[in-house]
């Protein structure tokens, strides 16, 4: 396992209190990455949604009823990445330079072992042949290749945009890109500015500050996979729900 600490650690901070479940991020992500639409009989467990908004209620009657929306995408785990260790033909790889967990559909054999291994269920399998409506072939985003049947696909932090930013920087003679030049489609599309994307390793970046803030929490932190997506909330029940997995060994709630 290449444990070299990457120069950059791209990550996201999602403010749950700002997210109102509009789903613009899901649509923007699917458009940016040429994610196809599955037939109607697919049901909710065979879709292709690289970022998936779960709605969670506090199960209370009016007037105390409250709802939180949790967009969950690949967390680009940095420590013992579950899916990298299991892929039999190295179709999954953590980029040492920026910590992005990649998934190469051309190398993927479709054994789906990584899907079983991922605790965040952030990996989606093409159960059907991806089909595009008649004539829309030339509307696809040229920066991302469409996948084929029988392979797994996942969020790669809009790497097509990372390429475009690299090209733009290179045309100005720079080989590294500036933080504001590269942003994911979901962060750009979110109407309420709930999603912030950036380099967690760069201490004075917006993402790093928010992630280090008191309100931040992570999903399944006790599993120790080192997710790089942080969530913010000031609502106690949301934090308790996220930490619903029983108390870790030392018995204190994980605050």
């Amino acid at each position: 396992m290449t444990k070299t600490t990457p120069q950059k650690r791209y990550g996201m901070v999602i403010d749950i209190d700002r997210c109102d479940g509009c789903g613009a991020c899901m649509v923007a992500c699917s458009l940016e990455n040429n994610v196809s639409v599955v037939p109607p009989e697919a049901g909710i467990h065979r879709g292709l949604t690289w970022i998936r908004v779960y709605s969670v209620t506090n199960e209370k009657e009016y007037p105390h009823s409250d709802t939180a929306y949790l967009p969950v995408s690949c967390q680009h785990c940095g420590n013992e990445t579950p899916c990298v260790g299991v892929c039999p033909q190295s179709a999954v790889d953590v980029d040492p330079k920026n910590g992005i967990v990649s998934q190469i559909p051309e190398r993927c054999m479709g054994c789906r072992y990584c899907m079983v291994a991922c605790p965040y269920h952030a990996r989606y399998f093409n159960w059907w042949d991806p089909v595009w409506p008649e004539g829309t072939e030339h509307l696809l985003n040229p920066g991302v290749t469409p996948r084929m049947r029988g392979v797994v696909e996942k969020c790669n932090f809009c790497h097509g945009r990372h390429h475009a930013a690299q090209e733009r920087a290179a045309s100005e003679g720079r080989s590294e890109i500036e933080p504001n030049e590269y942003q994911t489609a979901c962060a750009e599309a979110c109407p309420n500015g709930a999603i912030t994307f950036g380099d967690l390793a760069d201490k004075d970046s917006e993402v790093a500050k928010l992630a280090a803030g008191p309100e931040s929490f992570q999903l399944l932190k006790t599993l120790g996979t080192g997710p790089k997506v942080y969530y913010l909330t000031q609502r106690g029940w949301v934090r308790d729900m996220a930490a619903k997995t029983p108390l870790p060994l030392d018995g204190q709630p994980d605050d």
Partner: protein
Amino acid sequence: MGFSVKRRDFLGLVGGGAVGAALSPAPWKGLDDIAIWTQNWSWKPRLPRGPVEVAFTHCGLCHAGCGLKVRSVGGSPVGVHGVPGHPLSAGFVCALGLAGRYLSYHPSRIVEPTIVGADGQRRGIPFKAAVRQLGDWLDDTRSGGGHGSVAILDNRPGRMRSLAYRKWLGALDGAHIKGLREDTPINRLRAMLDGPAPELGLDIARARTVLSFGAPVLEGLGSGEAGSQLRGRSDSDKPYIVQIETRPSRTARGADLWLRIAPGTETVLALGLANVLVSEGLYDKEIIAQQALDLDGPGGYRELVARFSPKKVSRITGIDAATIKKVARRFASGPAVVIPGVDPGGGPLSAEAQTAAFSLSLLNGDVGRPGGVVARRASGTTQLPREGRLADTVELADVPDGSIRLLIADGVAGGFAIPTSLLERKLNPSEGRVVSLAPFERSALHGADLVIPSTTPFESIDEAGVPIDAPVDSMGLTVPSMRAPDYSVDSLRVLSMVAKSSVVPTITELLRGRSDRIHAGERGSVFDPSKGESVPLTEFKTNGDLWRALTSGGLWTDASATFSCPPFRLMGANAAIRDRLHRALEQPSTADGWAHEITLMPFGWRDASGDGPLPPVMAKLFRETRLRLDSRFATICPKTAGDLGFVEGDKASIKTSLGSITVEVVLDPAVVDGVVHVAVGPSTEAFGDASRGKGDQPLDLPSCENDACWRVIPAKMLEVVS
């Protein structure tokens, strides 16, 4: 002994061949090529190749008029993004806008003019024959019909195109019917003002309190700037949002205070709030005394309101008296905005509810004050270059029943869903005919006799809308980023080919005319999307410069204007409405006719407006996840489910006198007991699976006798064992 020469040597030959093949690259390259073949199956789409051009335009899919940055390759758009710093949308584009380009290839796209023959079968006819048919129908309608026998249903009445429609209708003594939209209720407030009033807008961004009667404030109401950005703001002077709604909508769940009223009791609550304002004198007495014409005297506003004590109101609406008092005091504490909402699927509030709501605004003196209701000076949209009578614009509800003999529906996207029964009632029962000039088949007009394909907003130049919450008027253009297919034709061209008498100008002439008039006005500023900042209009020397700026995605915004509120009637001018206001109390929240098992409340998703087609990618929200429940699901609260004997996931049928739909039950503790919420769409057909057929249409159920309001429908809910 030994073997025939043939077999042993044959084995030798094969062995040699195998070794030879292994030593040549052919089999290994073959293996590699097979793997590459699995990547390039013939049915896998090829990516567009070529340099990427960036252009700016506006989105025409609804009246919010968000700014768009469009990346295209080889003339077709491959990426749509928001324009940061845009005066109206501030970088926001809703899901529908992002994926709008896919609508041009939607299976329900009308690709040839079709007509319903005598046998009721729809078949295609050439464009010339369609226009001739329309001309014939027009002739025999004008010969026989009285006023309003020809009508145009216009989903966005404030545009230059609407002016051309009204001029064309003027010559035919027709009616220009306003389609259902977010800002339809604003005209109710203008009707309450005494004397001519300018266009009105709601200044939500600077309001201290927002009192929303079911309006989707946090779901992208209006444009991104004021609407859904509210939730994003954390500064202290963020407007305090009070959502008065029965349904646990996204706005209700996200609002600062959610008043969950019993179904159909908005009027009672509004008057209850008014009662607190009047009884505690929380209003500017001198001004109101001068301006309010129907404040005192018998049957006056003060007397009406006195009967709505908080205790009585709380019994009817289910909101406790203390909360009513608290909301009223907060409302009176500063500039506030009242929005009687129009639900994309549930339709408008009743007329008396809108009047009661706006009376609060008038009482609070918010009309004409920043942070309340502001005036938007019309800019170059009031008069046409040449002379001619303009037909007046009427509400769908105010159109007398059975009066329309030829209805022409302008099918541009963005209008909200209308129940089929409501339209049919307005048509003349015997010779009523509907002609739809639309790019898509729309379920409300799926019965149209003649359909002529028109362009989608991404393919034709037109005016971008002005959002409900824009403090000033503005003009932006939807510059086409895709080539319009040759079978689609502009609605104005159809009318000009049909109209024998008056000349109908083309859309470009109209827009250029307005642009020139704005340039002559030398007011406001122009936003340049590529640079991201605004430049005063005076810097544009000729009107050609302005036109070039607009056609490259720029946006002209007017300067703000002050407007003092004229005298007004708190109970509106219409006697019928005043009468219904007085009888609001006697009408118990559930009228005797409603002693039905359950109250059906249809609703619609703001950016998936009920019946129109949707880009297939929106299925991610409705089908591939349970984030939004579409027309297959009904939400009820666990208590009601228990009474009716339902469990989560059961199949149930909801019946009214007009029909029934089958739904799957979803439990939600936040729903009012005895109420079931069903989304009016999108059906699977909306995502392009035409083979699946329309599916159940919740909007076929309401009969809406009284003034076209179908938000609350008495119904029965039965178990369907499937």
